[in-house]
């Protein structure tokens, strides 16, 4: 059974037979699977629509006050905080929720949901906001004109605008004043067969609240887990088929 519908066609699944596949099937720890190593690709290899990357957030394991994922993201992408927090870029942030009727509280990370039909991609006049074939939504900083229409359109408030000149940027995340940015699913890591920094940090800290993997592969950890536990999309009413799913809310 495929837990995430609609699914791309798997008939032309590539690459699985390459060396190391057997080892890659080994699971090192919950949430950490070497399957992703088999997905490492060389720079000249195009991404495939046979793959859809996704993330599963288990809110029951996400601790209130814990910001391990946020800290790891900020370190990975060189995001700094300033004395004007309303201007700071946040690729991932922690939300604290409280049910108005019952008083029950929840804590969970919010980030770009890497929607299949992303409103940010729809509204971008130049095509700077785009969706890779494998489902990762990115901003081409070279053709972003900084109109911020995508920020108006994102239902998840997942995008930030660079309001000032930047120094000490990290090479893997070139940023530019006057352009919009958001979570990249750590595409630089994913293309090398690694997990996003937030997922890695959450797992290393033993929370295991985040699972990253191929939603398109019924055998992947994320798909297998999603078959066992109830998951939902945030603002499912918008029918965006998000790449990030939540459990426990």
């Amino acid at each position, binding site marked *: 059974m495929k837990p995430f519908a609609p699914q791309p066609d798997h008939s032309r699944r590539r690459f699985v037979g390459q060396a190391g596949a057997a080892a890659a099937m080994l699971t090192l720890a919950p949430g950490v699977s070497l399957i992703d190593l088999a997905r490492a690709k060389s720079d000249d290899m195009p991404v495939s629509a046979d793959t859809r990357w996704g993330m599963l957030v288990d809110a029951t394991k996400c601790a209130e006050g814990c910001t391990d994922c946020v800290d790891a993201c900020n370190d990975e992408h060189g995001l700094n905080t300033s004395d004007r927090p*309303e201007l700071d870029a946040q690729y991932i*942030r922690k939300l604290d*929720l409280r049910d108005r009727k019952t008083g029950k509280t929840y804590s969970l990370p*919010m980030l770009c949901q890497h929607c299949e039909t992303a409103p940010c991609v729809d*509204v971008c006049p130049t*095509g700077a906001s785009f969706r890779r074939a494998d489902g990762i939504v990115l901003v081409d900083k070279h053709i972003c004109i900084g109109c911020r229409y995508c920020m*108006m359109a994102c239902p*998840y408030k997942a995008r930030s605008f660079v309001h000032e*000149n930047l120094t000490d940027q990290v090479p893997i995340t070139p940023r530019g004043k006057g352009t919009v940015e958001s979570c990249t699913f750590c595409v630089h890591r994913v293309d090398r067969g690694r997990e996003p920094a937030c997922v890695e940090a959450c797992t290393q800290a033993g929370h295991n609240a985040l699972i990253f993997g191929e939603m398109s592969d019924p055998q992947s950890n994320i798909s297998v887990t999603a078959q066992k536990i109830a998951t939902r999309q945030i603002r499912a009413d918008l029918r965006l088929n998000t790449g990030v799913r939540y459990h426990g809310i």
Partner: protein
Amino acid sequence: MASNGGERFNLLSGSGLRFPLVVGALLVLVVLGYAAAHYMEIEGHHVTGMTNQIVWGTPHVFAVFLIIAASGALNVASLASVFGISRYKPLARISGLLAIALLAGGLVVLVLDLGRPERLIVAMTYYNFKSIFAWNIFLYIGFFLVAAVYLWMHFEPRMRDYIKPVGIGAFVWRIVLTTGTGSIFGFLVARQAYDAAIMAPLFIVMSLVFGTAVFLLFALAVFRWSGRELDTDVVTKLANLLGVFVAASLYLTATYHLTNLYITEHHGFERFILTEGGIYTTLFWLVQVGLGGLLVFAVLWTPLIGAPRRKAVAASVLALIGGAAQVYVIIIGGQAYPIELFPGLDVSSSFFDGVVTHYTPSLPEIGLGLGGVGLALLIALVGLRVLPFLPDRPATEAVDQPG
């Protein structure tokens, strides 16, 4: 001097200091506006009041106001050329000029507020046709062309027969253009304030209000300046038309809010705008509905002010003040209300989720906006100086001529 079917048109003449002084003052405004934009570009948008929460600020209020006013400024041309009302025919040229000037002013503000305005060429060469923004780029450029061709038909005696068809084209184009501008907001599914088809007709009616008011003030001013007199009948009829447009705008605004009030999920937003929104609530009730609505009716249709010209000026100024408040409430107020990600849950975060966002317009933003207004007026005035836009006969005498 130029003529068109018996009607004579002339330049805005005069050798005194008035023209250079006014043009000089407008130039100062334009230079200050450009300086503000340059400052924002060099420093980054942190010098403005805009944040990751209020992503569109005062420049967008100015830009949207000017752009939809441009569409509405073509009202008089449409009345003359599409609906064939003779009394407006001598004024059709000014109507076209004002439309072009206002659109230029609005677009300059919009472009100079971009994070990367130097990449305008990118926006002109890369298109995502699913984006209503991309469509608007075509609609704006097309509007310039259609309005320019319309003026050409007026200026070239051999083209007089084409005034009506081109006028109809311009009329359709401006309706589509304002539909596009309204749909920038109407197509936003993310936010409680927008995501409503009524945005398109609302913006069309707003354009009729702003455009008629700007036209009345501009025409009264330049006629007086050049020693002409705008016919009282024209002034009264246009002012009454303005009142009808204001009523239509209030009607659509009421429909928008009543629809939201019926739909439970929008109650939070309506409570915010209508009762608890602070500056937005004040602007909505006091300025948009009060000054820009009810007081306009009182000025026009009670003996509060007797003289027709004063009536028209007062009603136009009030309609514009109310309209500016309306655009501010739609754009800024709509963003200030937090996006509802989890209905029924209280949300908090370090990214200002779940809270009403504070926004204060900054000096550079206001400077840029005023620069756009200055540019629009400058283009219109210089236009009057170099091409024969001003009719030499009272409007009522102009009958039975083409266009």
